[in-house]
């Protein structure tokens, strides 16, 4: 008997919103999630992603909109009636129960038979690779093991939807990488839909089938990791996806491209969305901005950090714009350096950054 998610076709969020007093934490989120999909809710702290997750779990009531699981409206159900699995940021393991009883809690609440429960617990323990830790109390486990128990407890009830609230944020860097692949493996194994809240773009990119980028309670962009990485729809999304250089400047038309003025030079760039002549924002990843002797942009180096293969540097142009770039050679503070960038790597947005 394997653990497999309960069947459903689609989870639909329709204008889901929630306010706290005067604060609109969630302003109408609409999203469709298919069975088996791994969705990452990505955004800076305070963007409403955790609020969205708590609304889905039923821990917060909606102040507007609705949630549908296929043809059933579920947003008025209590959390215990929804049957979603949730993994909490602090794991929320029951400290007075053994690992085994923690995992079996949801099953015994469903009133399942003892042998059935024992079988499922064993299955869940082996899925999260904790086979021999069943009798311990949560306090006797390491952070990574506690995390595995929390995941086992959430999936053993075979939920159609698993909700995860920044589950890796309390782990050290090595364990985080390890658990990341574990989470994806378990997701694929049980076939539920997973909604995963994180503020770490790398985590979202590597885990998710689709990423939902949020900001100020609004969905800014939904797309596959590749789409979001290559072509963010807005400058603020670009900033969040690692386009660290955001230069407010003036753009002028040149064929299909837009020339943006950076450091006294016109740099050709690729327009995105409604970008046109006039005020614009150019977004460039530091690793696309490379040191090159005949590059058109000249900067004075302000700092350089060695990151293993490259030097990760910051420099300032003649007109005072700070740029982050990469260099394969060692550079020192005060050096004058020329930079080059491929036009397809300069994304030009209409100026709508708040």
């Amino acid at each position, binding site marked *: 008997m394997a653990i497999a998610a309960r069947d459903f076709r689609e989870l639909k969020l329709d204008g889901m919103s929630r306010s706290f007093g005067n604060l609109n934490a969630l302003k109408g989120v609409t999203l469709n999630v298919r069975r088996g999909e791994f969705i990452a809710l990505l955004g800076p702290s305070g963007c409403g992603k955790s609020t969205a997750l708590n609304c889905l779990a039923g821990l917060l009531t909606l102040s507007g909109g609705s949630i549908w699981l296929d043809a059933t409206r579920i947003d008025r159900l209590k959390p*215990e009636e929804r049957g979603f699995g*949730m993994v909490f940021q602090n794991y929320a393991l029951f*400290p007075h129960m053994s690992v085994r009883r923690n995992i079996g809690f949801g099953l015994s609440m469903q009133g399942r038979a003892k042998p059935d429960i024992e079988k499922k617990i064993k299955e869940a323990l082996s899925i999260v690779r904790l086979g021999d830790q069943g009798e311990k109390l949560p306090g006797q486990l390491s952070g990574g093991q506690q995390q595995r128990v929390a995941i086992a407890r959430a999936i053993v009830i075979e939920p159609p939807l698993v909700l995860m609230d920044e589950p890796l944020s309390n782990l050290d860097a090595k364990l985080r990488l390890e658990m990341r692949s574990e989470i994806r493996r378990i997701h694929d194994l049980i076939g539920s839909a997973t909604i995963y809240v994180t503020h770490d773009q790398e985590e979202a990119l590597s885990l998710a089938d689709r990423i939902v980028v949020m900001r100020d309670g609004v969905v800014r962009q939904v797309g596959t990791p590749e789409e979001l990485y290559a072509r963010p729809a807005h400058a603020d999304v670009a900033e969040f996806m690692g386009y660290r250089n955001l230069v407010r400047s003036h753009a002028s038309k040149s064929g299909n491209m837009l020339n943006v003025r950076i450091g006294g030079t016109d740099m050709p760039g690729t327009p995105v969305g409604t970008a046109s002549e006039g005020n614009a924002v150019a977004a460039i990843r530091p690793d696309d901005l490379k040191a090159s002797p005949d590059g058109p942009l000249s900067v004075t180096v302000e700092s350089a950090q060695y990151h293993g293969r490259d030097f990760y540097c910051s420099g300032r142009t003649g007109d005072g714009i700070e740029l982050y770039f990469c260099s394969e050679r060692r550079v020192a503070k005060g050096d004058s350096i020329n930079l080059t960038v491929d036009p397809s790597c300069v994304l030009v947005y209409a100026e709508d950054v708040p």
Partner: protein
Amino acid sequence: MTRRGKGEGREGAPPLRVRLALRDLDGVTLLALPAVLFVAALFVYPFLYGFVLSFEPKTGDWLANYRKFFSDPFLYDTIGATLWLAVPATLINVLLSVPVAMRVRRMQRRRILTTILVVPITLGTVLIAEGLLNYLGPQGWFNRSLALLGLGPVRLVHNYTGVMLSLVMSGFPFTFLLTLSYVTGIDPSLEQAASTLGAKARARFRHIVLPLLAQGLAINLCLSFVQTFSVFPSAVLLGAPAGATRVISIAAYQAAYEQYDYSMASAVAMIMGFVQLAVVILILSGRALLYRGAAGGGKG
């Protein structure tokens, strides 16, 4: 050759100062001294003095006081009378505090309610007794209102009921505050986790909150019991000090200040202390069966 410190010990062994520091004994430890002296002078010494005094009766051999106490129903019945007040009052206070604390925990204006509930502590037992005497007495508002409705007067003071009411009113704020602090110490995400796992409110309370609260409730029971067992002013003012509410502290008082038999009074006080100790040990030994540890779900 280097100068040797005063506390330096044998060759090879670390100096005394270091050895003490390893056991967390250093200069700061001396700060505990005033408190130790205070406890010794005001608790340990009087206790030992009373203990010895209780074995030096006015007449008879060294156990005469105790023999007298346990052979005279007028004296030994006070234990039962006191327990008959203290045990129900303790249970009422502690059990009532749990649902109230559970509710208050979620309230926005917790401080207002907490303040209201704590006022009886600041008033003191005598003021509460005065108030109850006036309000619930034969000519009080309560009985007059009943009379308006054509209902006969009920006797609520100068008996068991009066003392019980006073014990609940003055004891509840204590148990409530203590329970509230234990309840708020339980990580709310534990209950949320339980609810996502399908546990309804009743199951969440039974399987999550209650086991994590049990330790605190045991302590609460002990403190509340000790407090109510030594009831004196309300038993005299609101009760029937010669009858149903003749508690053990009244027996001690009468021995000391009506018969001027300090030795007998000490013996009564010792018996009182041992009854309290017995109950506390009983509660705490039950506690050993319970989970003791953090009430949080995460690391640290």
